[in-house]
């Protein structure tokens, strides 16, 4: 069952990654990357149970925090220096 | 109890739970140092934005708000799911509207705007003074917000305090 969940999360991550590639705006990409990050947290948690190493939860927590900070920083940057082509296909 | 002490206690508990090492003195010392550092940084934010202890009290007093919000989240999840799986029968009708906020304190407004964002289907774009700019995926969701139940409940948290 954990395996199924893992697989599902991987599928979600894959689709998010696809969206990150497609864009078209930089915000779509950031949205997708953020989603990819939060799903990574989930994945680590479930994977910990799958491999019977629930200690991985610590890593998941830390990853959640890093992901949040990362997204905020990127947004700060994009907000201050908006790319010329942010809103269209580059 | 002053905000600072609440913070210290909260952070200490948080650290202890995450750490799991409750006997190693070196690690405990490091933990204490982390708590001190985090408190110091939080107090600097506090000085600037004045989330005073009243704010903390808001979050803790009314237990009915959180279950209600959870139910709202479940409901809005379902409505967005319908849009995703059945776009033909449940077409989206995106719109943007500026709403007046009932809550008056900063902490309550923050809570309100975050609650809007947390429920799928709506997102708060910008908060200015007592107004909030909202994007909604569905007109119904916007209506619900205009009806003001959420605002009302957050406002109650604020005044009942």
């Amino acid at each position: 069952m954990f395996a199924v969940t893992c697989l599902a999360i991987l599928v979600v991550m894959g689709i998010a990654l696809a969206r990150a590639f497609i864009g078209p705006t930089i915000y779509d990409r950031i949205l997708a990357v953020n989603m990819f990050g939060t799903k990574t947290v989930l994945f680590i948690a479930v994977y910990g149970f799958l491999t019977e190493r629930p200690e991985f939860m610590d890593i998941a927590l830390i990853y959640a925090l890093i992901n949040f900070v990362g997204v905020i920083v990127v947004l700060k940057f994009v907000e201050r220096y908006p790319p010329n082509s942010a809103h269209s296909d580059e | 109890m002053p905000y600072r002490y609440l913070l210290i206690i909260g952070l200490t508990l948080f650290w202890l739970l995450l750490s799991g090492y409750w006997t190693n003195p070196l690690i405990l010392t490091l933990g204490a140092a982390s708590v001190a550092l985090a408190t110091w940084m939080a107090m600097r934010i506090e000085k600037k934005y004045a989330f005073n202890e009243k704010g903390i009290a808001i979050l803790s007093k009314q237990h009915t708000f959180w279950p209600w919000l959870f139910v709202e989240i479940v409901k809005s999840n379902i409505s967005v799911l319908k849009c995703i799986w059945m776009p033909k029968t449940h077409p989206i009708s995106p719109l943007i509207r500026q709403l007046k906020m009932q809550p008056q304190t900063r902490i309550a407004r923050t809570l309100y705007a975050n609650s809007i964002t947390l429920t799928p289907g709506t997102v708060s774009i910008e908060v200015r003074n007592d107004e909030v700019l909202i994007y909604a995926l569905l007109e119904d969701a916007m209506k619900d917000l205009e009806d003001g139940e959420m605002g009302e409940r957050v406002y109650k948290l604020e005044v009942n305090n």
Partner: protein
Amino acid sequence: MMTLELYNYWVVIFLMMAGFYMLIASNHLIRKIIGLNIFQTSVFMLYISLGKVAGGTAPIAAEGIDTYSNPLPHVLILTAIVVGISTTSLALALVIRIKESYDTVNEDEILEIDRIADEEGSSA
């Protein structure tokens, strides 16, 4: 079968090539830095997969587990990551100063600006 068993190396090689390509092909200095990071990251992954012990689990001490993967590469890579971050931040600082003095971060444009400056310098 070899090819699939060594999938980690293929991932590493793919990342390495991707980073390297970005580094070489891009004129944009920031992209070069990103390429450099991908390139370095591939090496980090190489190291970590080198530390894998068959049947071993992540080297986090816990009761009831006696086979761990080798933690040394992890420790080494922590150092290498720190080095990588220092390199990246230095590179970014340089790019900021380049942007300040050239008003562009495009390598071709920078070369062009230098070339024009040279010509003016030699004619003056």
